[in-house]
Every structure is written in structure tokens, then in C-alpha cells.
């Protein structure tokens, strides 16, 4: 790339707003396939941020690079569900066809291929991102086509449209989805209805409905909104957590694609209730394909007077929403890390307390809610608390969207009243011969068949919605290995137990998976999981050992059968270490190997 061209085409902001750093970096990366030094220097002087700090931000996010990626930058989704659908064979296939090594850029700069954490397309995988745009339903034929398009240097805009088709896969509706089924487009009447009750009244209705956060933690939404409103401040913020990074979760993607107006209605309702004038949607970088659509929806609403100034004809009610893109960091789904990221920084979780409701974005009171929570809140105000409580259990009112993937005939989005048993879910989606279900994502629970009568509810199995099915042909250790790699990759690195422990766990599970582990190593696993659980700074590290803890408890046999050895076998493999010497000396016969 001609450096002169870079200087001229990077549009830099005026001095000031350092919170836009990450957004500038995302844009520069998209334009140049990397962040040139010149851009770092320019951003540093215009935003007043030291260059090393900017490079530190770039180095934190998986989608930002200081050296050029390929013109076609391909990232295969590397979640266990992709593996189950054959992604690894397809990666080999594509890299062989293109003559490129995983993780590297081809000599001519045309293409790079790598893997990335779950891209949220689990029900239509195997999936990849090409220059951040999703292509799903991969098979050999599609891989062949992709290789050809890249070799022929066909502009992405001219790739077959069906490649970029993303299904919304709704398989089962209950009260929430069906209440919105006929709603299309922007509805001024709906917003008028939503904004007519007094804020206090809104809080009372949400409280009465018992709405709890849908992002996983299950905090009472009314309490969150009320404490935000009751904190004295110059400015309050409404933030939608659309980071959806939990492996196996994709329901927010479907909601954003299909019910963006309802989401914005929910955020506007929140703004009106807590007295906020600014909102953000933090959209994970993997969902770049949704950006244009969401921006169009926001614009449509502004044009109709449903967003921006004097909303719905209410003099003085001003509220607008910006979309911020993430850049490949799972930790940014954690609300305080999300706020750091919104402020343009590395996504390191904050000390809590204080919580975001009192000290959030720019240190002002901030409501952070999941996509589904905002939508549920607005539907409750439209249809009433009784409507909502009509579904679910005493402690878990309403319904939950489940993202179902893995071994079943009909993966997709299923909406169920809380209290529904796992057995019923499995029956509905056509799962047979099920060995285990992984619920609530990589840090969730691994449920064996004896427990299929347990139910989805805050008081039993609480979940943000990830539901991955494994049949009895599967080796659950593959899942454990995938998840431990995921956490080691996604640990933010701030605190000792998670930064070091997640890598120790990963290495031990690899050793075990390769059949080199002994009973000593199982004790080691136990030892590390306890330290991580008890001493980590945030929820990521505290729950990262869960896949190991869960399977050690519920499926000890997957460990036992790997431990055919004595107590201890060193992780260091002397014979493998001699491989380099064999390569150099071209001696490959039996005499060049050490027998163990």
C-alpha cells in the first residue's frame, strides 16, 4: 500500500474524543487490512493518546492488526459446533487449495486464513468470516468456490449473494416472539403507548412482571433501571449489550435481524424511564453484516420522529443511539469491560462496586441490558405484567429464547416458557441418543441424561440461551478441549489466576487429550480449577474452569479412559523434540527415534 495514499484517505477526527479510538481503528482496519504506523501516529496526536497505548488497544482485539492481513482475510469459526459439522477438514481443504498456512498471509498478500472464536452461526455452520462478513453452510463445494473466487480476485461485492444469506431459523415461538410476529417496521402508535405511562409506573409494571436480565446473570431489570434513575448525574446512558460472544448463542443475532425496531423501542422506553438522552448498541464485530440494517432502522426512526429530538412529539424528550462495533474480544460482553471498550479502550473489566448503574459509561449512571431484555421490557409495557407472568415459574416469569445447535434435526431458535424440561426441548428439536447437553455456553453446565428432567429456569438451570447437544458418538473431551482453548484465548490477561491458570488448564487438557496424562494431572486440573474459581477478578476467570469441573463430576469416564498411564508422564515428549534434528539431518529411520 502506498503510504501517501494512506495519509490522504485516513479521515481523522478533530482533537478530542478519545472514546472513538476503537471505532476509528475498526474502520482503518477494514480499509487497509491493517493499522498502518502512520495511522497510529496520526490518531495519537489527534486524540492525545500515547502511541504505545494505541498499539496496546490494537493488540488486545483479535480483529485488529499492526501488520497487513490478506486482501481476503478468512476466519473460520472455531467453536465445538463448527468442529462437529466438519469445519476442521474444510480449513485443511481451503488452505491446501490456496497454498496458505493457517495463521499466516500468503506470500503474494492475496489471502490469509485463521480461526476465530464462535461467530454465532452455530445452527447454520460450519461458518467463516471473509473480511468480517459471514458465510455459513460451508461444505466442500462452497470451499472450492471460495478458493476460485479468491484466486480470480473477484471483488467481494460480486461473490454469489446466497453466500451471505443468513437464515433467522426461528423454530418455536411462545408469547414474546408471537406478540411481535405481526409487527413490522416502525410504529409511531406503539411508541406512543410505550411512552404514555409515568416512569414510576413503568418501573412498577416491570417489577410486577418479575423481568430478570436475559444476558445470563438474571438481575432484576426494574431494580437496575430504578437505581440508575435514582443516581444523581448530569447524564445517564442506555447501553444494549449485543456482544453475544458466548459459544453456542445466536438468539440476539436473530432478534437484531428481525426485531430491531422492537429493540430500539425497548431502549427508548428505558431512556424515557431513567431520563437518559444517549444510547449505544455495542455490536460484536462478527455481526458486521447487521450494521447497515441497524443504521437504516435508526435513521428511519429519526425520520419519523421516533428517535433524536422531541421523540413521539414529547417536547424535551431527546434520545439518540449510536452503534459501536466490537473487534473480536469475548470479555467485552462483560458489562464493565464492555463500557471500557465503548470508551475506546482495551476491554479490561472494572472493579465492582461501583457498578455501571451508578458509575458506568464516562463514569455516569448506565443501564446495560441484553438485547432480549430490552425487547421483553417493551413487550411487557405493551401487553401487561399479567401477560408476561402467564408464562414461566414463580421465580422465573416469562419465556427464554434458546439457541439450539449440535446433534439434532432442527437446530435454531426456540422460545420456551421458563420451567420447560430439557427432555421436552430435546424432543422438540429432534435430538436422538443424546449423551449430554451443554447449557449456558462454555462456562455453563454439562447435563447428563439422568438429569434431563431438570428445567430451564433461574432457580434450576440458568442460561443466557446457549444449548448445545452431544449425542453418544461424541467425545466430550473434544468439547472440554475446545472450551479451555477458548478461555485461554479470551482471558483479558489482567489477573494472575485467569491469565496463567487458563493457559495451564489448556496445556493440561491437551496433554490429556493426546493420551499423555496420568492421575497426577487430574489432581493438577482440580488444583488449578479451584484457584481460578476462588481468586479470579471477574466472572470469566471464575467460571472458565467450569467445563473441566462439570465433566470431571458428571463424566469422569472421559478422563479415566485417557489416563492409561502411571501416575505421571512428563508433558515434554523427547521423541517429538528431536523432530527438528531429523528434519535438518534428513534421518527419518527407526534409528532416529527414541522409543518410550
Amino acid at each position, binding site marked *: 500500500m502506498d503510504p501517501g495514499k494512506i495519509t490522504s484517505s485516513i479521515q481523522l477526527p478533530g482533537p478530542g474524543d478519545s472514546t472513538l479510538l476503537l471505532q476509528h481503528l475498526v474502520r482503518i482496519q477494514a480499509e487497509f487490512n491493517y493499522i498502518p504506523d502512520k495511522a497510529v501516529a496520526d490518531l495519537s496526536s489527534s486524540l492525545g493518546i500515547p502511541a504505545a497505548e494505541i498499539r496496546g488497544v490494537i493488540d*488486545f482485539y483479535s480483529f485488529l492488526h499492526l501488520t497487513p492481513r490478506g486482501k481476503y482475510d478468512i476466519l473460520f469459526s472455531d467453536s465445538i459446533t463448527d468442529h462437529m459439522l466438519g469445519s476442521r477438514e474444510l480449513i485443511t481443504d481451503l488452505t491446501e487449495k490456496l497454498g496458505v498456512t493457517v495463521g499466516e498471509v500468503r506470500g503474494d498478500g492475496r489471502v490469509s486464513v485463521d480461526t476465530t472464536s464462535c461467530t454465532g452461526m452455530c445452527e447454520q455452520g460450519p461458518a467463516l468470516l471473509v473480511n468480517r462478513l459471514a458465510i455459513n453452510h460451508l461444505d466442500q463445494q462452497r470451499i472450492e468456490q471460495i478458493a476460485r473466487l479468491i484466486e480470480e480476485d473477484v471483488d467481494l461485492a460480486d461473490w454469489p449473494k446466497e453466500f451471505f444469506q443468513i437464515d433467522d431459523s426461528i423454530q418455536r415461538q411462545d408469547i414474546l416472539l408471537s406478540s411481535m410476529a405481526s409487527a413490522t417496521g416502525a410504529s409511531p402508535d406503539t411508541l406512543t403507548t410505550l411512552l404514555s405511562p409515568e416512569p414510576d409506573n413503568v418501573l412498577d409494571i416491570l417489577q410486577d412482571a418479575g423481568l430478570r436480565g436475559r444476558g445470563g446473570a438474571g438481575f432484576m431489570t426494574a431494580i437496575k433501571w430504578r437505581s440508575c434513575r435514582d443516581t444523581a448525574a448530569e447524564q445517564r446512558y442506555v447501553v444494549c449489550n449485543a456482544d453475544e460472544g458466548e459459544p453456542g448463542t445466536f438468539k440476539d443475532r436473530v432478534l437484531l435481524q428481525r426485531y430491531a425496531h422492537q429493540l430500539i423501542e425497548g431502549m427508548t422506553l428505558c431512556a424515557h424511564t431513567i431520563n437518559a438522552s444517549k444510547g449505544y448498541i455495542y455490536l460484536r464485530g462478527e455481526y458486521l453484516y447487521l450494521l447497515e440494517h441497524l443504521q437504516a432502522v435508526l435513521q428511519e426512526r429519526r425520520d419519523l420522529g421516533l428517535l433524536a429530538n422531541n421523540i413521539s412529539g414529547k417536547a424535551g424528550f431527546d434520545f439518540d443511539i449510536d452503534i459501536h462495533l466490537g473487534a473480536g474480544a469475548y470479555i467485552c460482553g462483560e458489562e464493565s469491560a464492555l463500557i471500557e471498550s465503548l470508551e475506546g479502550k482495551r476491554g479490561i473489566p472494572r472493579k465492582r462496586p461501583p457498578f455501571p448503574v451508578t458509575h458506568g459509561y464516562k463514569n455516569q449512571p448506565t443501564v446495560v441490558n441484553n438485547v432480549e431484555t430490552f425487547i421483553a421490557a417493551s413487550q411487557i409495557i405493551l401487553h401487561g405484567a399479567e401477560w408476561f407472568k402467564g408464562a414461566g415459574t414463580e421465580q422465573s416469569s416469562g419465556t427464554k429464547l434458546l439457541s439450539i445447535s449440535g446433534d439434532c434435526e432442527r437446530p435454531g431458535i426456540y422460545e420456551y416458557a421458563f420451567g420447560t424440561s430439557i427432555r421436552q426441548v430435546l424432543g422438540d428439536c429432534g435430538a436422538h441418543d443424546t449423551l449430554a447437553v451443554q447449557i449456558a455456553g462454555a462456562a455453563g453446565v454439562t447435563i447428563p441424561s439422568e438429569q434431563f428432567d431438570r428445567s430451564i429456569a433461574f432457580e434450576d438451570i440458568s442460561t443466557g440461551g446457549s444449548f448445545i447437544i452431544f449425542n453418544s458418538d461424541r467425545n466430550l473431551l473434544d468439547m472440554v478441549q475446545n472450551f479451555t482453548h477458548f478461555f*485461554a484465548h479470551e482471558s483479558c490477561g489482567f489477573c*494472575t489466576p485467569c491469565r*496463567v*491458570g487458563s493457559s495451564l488448564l489448556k496445556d493440561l487438557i491437551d496433554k490429556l487429550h493426546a493420551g499423555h496424562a496420568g492421575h497426577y494431572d487430574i489432581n493438577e486440573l482440580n488444583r488449578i480449577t479451584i484457584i481460578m474459581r476462588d481468586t479470579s477478578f471477574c466472572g470469566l476467570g471464575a467460571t472458565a474452569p467450569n467445563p473441566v469441573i462439570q465433566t470431571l463430576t458428571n463424566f469422569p469416564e472421559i478422563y479415566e479412559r485417557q489416563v492409561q498411564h502411571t501416575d505421571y508422564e512428563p*508433558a515434554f515428549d523427547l521423541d517429538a523434540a528431536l523432530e527438528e534434528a531429523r528434519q535438518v539431518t534428513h534421518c527419518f529411520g527407526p534409528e532416529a527415534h527414541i522409543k518410550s
Partner: protein
Amino acid sequence: MPEQQTFKLDSKTIPFRDGDTIMDAALRAGEYIPHLCHNPEFTPHGSCRVCVVSANGRHVSACTQQAMNDMEVDNRSDAIMDKRRNLLQMLFVEGNHVCPGCEKSGACQLQAVAYYTNMLSPHYTHFFPKRSVDASHADIAIDFNRCILCELCVRASRDVDRKNIFSISGRGIKARLVINSDTGKLGDSDLTATDKAVHVCPVGAILPKHRGYDKPIGERLYDRQPVSQVGDVAAHDEDDNHG
């Protein structure tokens, strides 16, 4: 007058003021809670986790947890010490620490806290990361092999020196300390030997040049008394900080 608020640290009753963390109150009362990334001159960080205690049955870091009336804090039990020992072992295997050859040996807080917790070996498999030594500065050297990512130099340079010379880059196990200069070298930064950032490193990562091993074994900071009595290395005179 309002009644004095107190909490229990093991068997001792510790008075505290509003806004105190467990660490603040304990330090004032002369009670030792092992720590590395905490330095009372800076805002609590909570990243090394070595000050983990059990407060009313919950594991928290003493440096960030607000003290509460009648709280029961376990700071000494075997279970708590065991967790600290494991955290220290993790720090040891993450970097490259060759104490016998290290100038900071004997005056190093990591080493001293390790002794205090009876850590006899690093236990875990060493990562043996490839890290460098930056000797480009005339008066100060930095050995990244010994950095434990406590961010004290980052905080000191940002909050006290107002120079922002250090920051953290990367993520997870690849997180690392970096220097903010055009070349990334210390020599090209405007760090000076009198900067606060040069005097807060609890380990032997940031060291003054032109001297070393000038205290004989037996007279080094932690040679005669344990860290629980001596306190932080940064709180001592420069001459003592050096093995």
C-alpha cells in the same frame, strides 16, 4: 460520637474508617496481608490476587474490598495461604525468574512473599517465554523476564510522573509491558532515574544501572526479617532496595 466500626482479621479486631478497604485498615493497624500489586500510594488495582482473603465466607481481594462492620476476615488459614502460594507459583512459571543470579534477590517482594507463604518450588510447568532485556537507557535497565504485570510502573508514570511511559499490550498470557517511545526502547523515552515509576517495581524488572549486588547476603532487605515485618520494598530507602 459515632461508634468505632471494626471488623475481625483472623482473631484481631481491626478498627476502620468509612471508605477503607480491608487492606487500608489492616496496614494502618500494622497487620500484614501479603500483596504485590498494591501500594498504598496508588489506587487499588486488584490484579495479582495475592491479597485474597475470605470475607464472610466470600473470596475477595483485600486491596479492593471495602471493610464492613463486623466482617469476619480469614487472612491466615492454611486454605488461604495455599491459594496465595498457588498464585505466586503461577507468577513464577509465567516469567523467567532465576533468583540466584538476580540483582534484586533478597530485596524482591515476589521472592519475599513466596518465602512467607512457604513456597518451596514453582510446582507448575514453566512457560519459558521468550522475553528481552532493554538496556538502552543510560541509567535504568528493564528485564521483561521478571515483570509480573502489577502495573505499578504504569500507574506511577501515568498518575505521578505524568509521562505515560509504560502501558500494557496484548491479551491473556500474551499480555506484556511495553514502553511508549518511537522505537519501543526505554532509551528513547523520557524516563529519568528520579521518576516515581523507577522506584515502585516490587521485583527485579526495573533496575537502576551502574550498581548491583552491592549488599552482601545477610544484609539485604528481607534477609533478617520477613516481608510481614519489613513491608513493601518500595517503601524503603533506595539503598536498601538493592541486593
